[in-house]
């Protein structure tokens, strides 16, 4: 048993009669090295540890009240205080019919490799050397690069342990390593544009020091300068990063808690056709390639693939224990916490679309002419999971003759997520998982309204 699990199970002794208690303990080591202009800018080494406690007080019947508390240390006296605070918070909360923490549901966790020993085993000096090498290659890489604001090595080793009075014992351990670079490319007439790219892997050995500079410069150069695009409906191809932003908003609308709280455009639509027939959307945290994969969710239930849209039909939402109970169904093991200081919420963990096309090149060739969208500006404020409407500014380029052409900027896209899902014509198999809970892959969508602008 890990030392964290010992801490978590020991703390369960503080539970009182009539209470369900959940103890979540986590620890994370991180190293971050930033290089600039051939030298080291900063080296950060960090250890953080903490505990989050949920107490559900039962008042005899099926109802319960929930309280939560957390602290960023795990000494026995601290945990005792935190359990007391959580209990006091529960005492003041209003009863909820479906309150509760998870119970074992008999599904066994998948065997996944999410830990690489070389993250902890590589000396800091070697990590510093990697950051310096990345920065050097970025500066030497391409004549159009006018500056490298920074190049960075980052890694993390995180472990969690979760124990409950309902019999859950689950532990996770995961590592990640990344090399990121941002470059500024200069074009004719003093026009500049920045581009960034990251290589991510489970361990240090999996990192690619050449790919990020090349990708960053390609992205910057592709949109240097740029003019308008004719207003009206167009076939739009979304860059893999943009697809991730859009599908992340779709994933937000598939959250069980959003559905219950009338904050989702997909509420009440199970079994209905909501997307093109070719669309299969799955959240599969047992795919060890996905950055968000892991044997269990953050309530300790074994991860399982969840089919959300099958052949265009809405087949499921993602649930944690509470949202599942509220909707009279089972948890999909989709509980996610924002560290020890957050309570679990249902969220997608490894969302991807089933590919229908071989590559981005094949998609572009099929589309022939249209608009390639490399990045969205204003996506954070501009896409609503509540009604699906979005209106965002974009940067990208024209697609002509089946390949990428002149840069486009200063135009907007206005549509609706539901409309996008209905109009998807192709999904690329260029799946990558640089970070986060959503796959990066190219998609092509018919007939999105482009709010054009005159070339300046």
């Amino acid at each position, binding site marked *: 048993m890990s030392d964290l699990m010992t801490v978590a199970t020991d703390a369960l002794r503080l539970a009182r009669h009539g209470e369900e208690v959940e103890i979540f303990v986590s620890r994370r080591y991180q190293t971050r090295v930033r290089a600039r202009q051939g030298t080291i800018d900063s080296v950060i080494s960090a250890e953080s540890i903490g505990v989050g406690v949920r107490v559900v007080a039962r008042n005899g019947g099926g109802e319960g009240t929930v309280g*939560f*508390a*957390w602290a960023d240390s795990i000494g026995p006296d601290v945990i005792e205080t935190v359990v007391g605070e959580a209990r006091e918070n529960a005492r003041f909360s209003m009863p909820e019919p479906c309150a509760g923490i998870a119970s074992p549901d008999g599904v066994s966790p998948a065997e996944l490799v999410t830990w690489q020993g070389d993250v902890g085993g590589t000396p800091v000096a070697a990590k510093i050397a990697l950051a310096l090498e990345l920065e050097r290659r970025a500066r030497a890489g391409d004549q159009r690069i006018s500056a490298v604001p920074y190049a960075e090595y980052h890694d993390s080793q995180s472990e969690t342990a979760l124990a409950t009075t309902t019999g859950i014992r689950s532990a996770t351990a995961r590592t990640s390593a990344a090399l990121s670079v941002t470059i500024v490319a200069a074009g004719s007439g003093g026009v500049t544009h920045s581009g960034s790219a990251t290589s991510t892997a489970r361990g240090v050995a999996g990192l690619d020091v050449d790919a990020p500079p090349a990708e960053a410069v390609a992205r910057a150069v592709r949109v240097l300068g740029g003019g308008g695009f004719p207003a009206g409906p167009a076939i739009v191809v979304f860059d893999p990063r943009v697809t991730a932003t859009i599908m992340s908003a779709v994933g937000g609308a598939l959250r069980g808690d959003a559905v219950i709280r009338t904050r989702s455009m997909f509420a009440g639509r199970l079994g209905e056709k909501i997307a093109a027939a070719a669309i299969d959307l799955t959240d599969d945290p047992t795919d060890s390639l996905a950055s968000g994969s892991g044997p269990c969710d953050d309530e300790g239930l074994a991860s399982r693939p969840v089919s959300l849209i099958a052949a265009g039909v809405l087949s499921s939402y993602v649930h944690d224990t509470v949202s599942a109970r509220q909707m009279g169904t089972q948890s999909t093991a989709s509980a996610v916490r924002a560290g020890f200081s957050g309570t679990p919420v249902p969220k997608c963990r490894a969302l991807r679309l089933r590919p229908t096309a071989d590559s981005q090149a094949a998609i572009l060739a099929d589309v022939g002419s249209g608009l390639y969208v490399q990045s969205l500006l204003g996506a954070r*404020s501009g896409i609503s999971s509540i009604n699906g409407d979005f209106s965002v500014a974009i940067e990208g380029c024209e697609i002509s003759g089946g390949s990428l052409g002149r840069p486009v900027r200063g135009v907007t896209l206005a549509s609706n997520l539901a409309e996008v899902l209905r109009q998807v014509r192709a999904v690329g198999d260029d799946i990558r998982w640089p970070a986060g809970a959503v796959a990066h892959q190219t998609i092509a969508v018919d007939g999105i309204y482009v709010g054009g602008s005159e070339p300046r």
Partner: protein
Amino acid sequence: MPQSQLIPPELAADVLKTALHRGGEFADLYAEERWSTGAVLEAGTVGKLSSGQRRGAGVRVISGGATGFAYTADLSERGLHALARAASAIADRPGSAVTEPVPVTVPVLGAPPRQEWPEPAQSSRKVKIERLRYADDVARGVSPAIAGVHVSYGDSSRRLTVANSAGTYAEDFQVRNRFNVTCIVRGDTGLQTGYERFVRTVGSEIFDQIDVADMARGAARHALTKLNAAPAPSGEYVVVLAAGSGGILFHEACGHGLEADNVQRGQSVYASKLDTPVAGPGVTFVDDGTVPQACGSSRIDDDGAATRRTTLIEDGRLVGFMRKLEPLRDGAVPTGNPRWQRSTGNCRRQSYQHLPLVRMTNTFILPGPEDRAELIGQTRRGIYIAKLGGGQVNVATGEFVFGTTEAYLIENGQVTRPLLDTNLLGSGPEALSGIDAIAGDLDMAWGACDKDGQRVSVGCGQPSLRIRGLTVGGHAG
């Protein structure tokens, strides 16, 4: 404010000596303790009562211009020395020039101790729940179209100590409170949301200052208005920003370019514009960490320097940048803290787990001579923005996109139809130069500002003002 010191000055000095034992020209220690609580009302039920505590320290060592940083939650004497040794490894990095450690000046109090500390921020659980439920009741009573109400409360109290090798030792105690009401309504235009938000540097007196019923009615009205809203037009329009609604735009699209670290890295459009006109005449833009109760206010910044007002743009001309303490790079022993003169009190950290950055406190445009009604009255066709939402900006160019959350059409000098949420596009320099009328009704709002992965609360504001020509990007129109 608890009476005992988080880190006594003598211990701080010892830890700083350990931090510099392998060499380096500067070291600092930042320790904090933070308590926070929150509560949420959703679907008619008060739940998610939470309490948290954070306690830890970060040590920074600068050697040959490179920064080593480490942090820990262990504030014991042993833990702090281990932390200082971890941060000092920067002085041993491959290829580094050997620098002699500077002598550590025993820290002295940087500012006279405060006579009266604020009370902790927390209200009792009973009071919080009562206010949440009252807001919910009032909002639901406004209209049968209300489909959902979300009310949230949060507070934090934070005690901190900053000490550095140049002899600074400072302490502070800071409190903050927030109360938000969001309403969702259902109607012909689908689901629409409206909100009211209060965030201030105040303690438990928050409930003497706000009328939660007013906020609830405001949020409900805001959402209901959108049920009758029309899609926004697209194109270039005259934009009138209501007082307090658009401060975030100037914060993001101009303020960040006036932060010294962005300027030094060449990531600012304003880098070479000092003493030149950058805004319309009459536009004065300041940063002021001393505004009572504003979200970005504090007595000292996170370097321990006193906060103050810094004029950035005066009558349209760029006159200054925001700065934090910049330690000497030549290893010379600072005497009398010469570099304090250079700080404008704009150093902030999200927590002890973060490196200090140059950040804004409360940034706003000063009032002008015009009348608000006139600004609208003189506008034949334009957009009136009552609330602006989140946005995105390219600091290097000042280009921005902001989402509107409450906007109306101006036709023949009158505010007419409400508009569905849309985007405002432009560039900070263009927006500043395009300001052609400023009213006298300055108001401030809260903003969450992200920089280098760190989030802090800021105040931002402006009086009602008019901008000639911003791009409005909406649906077809």
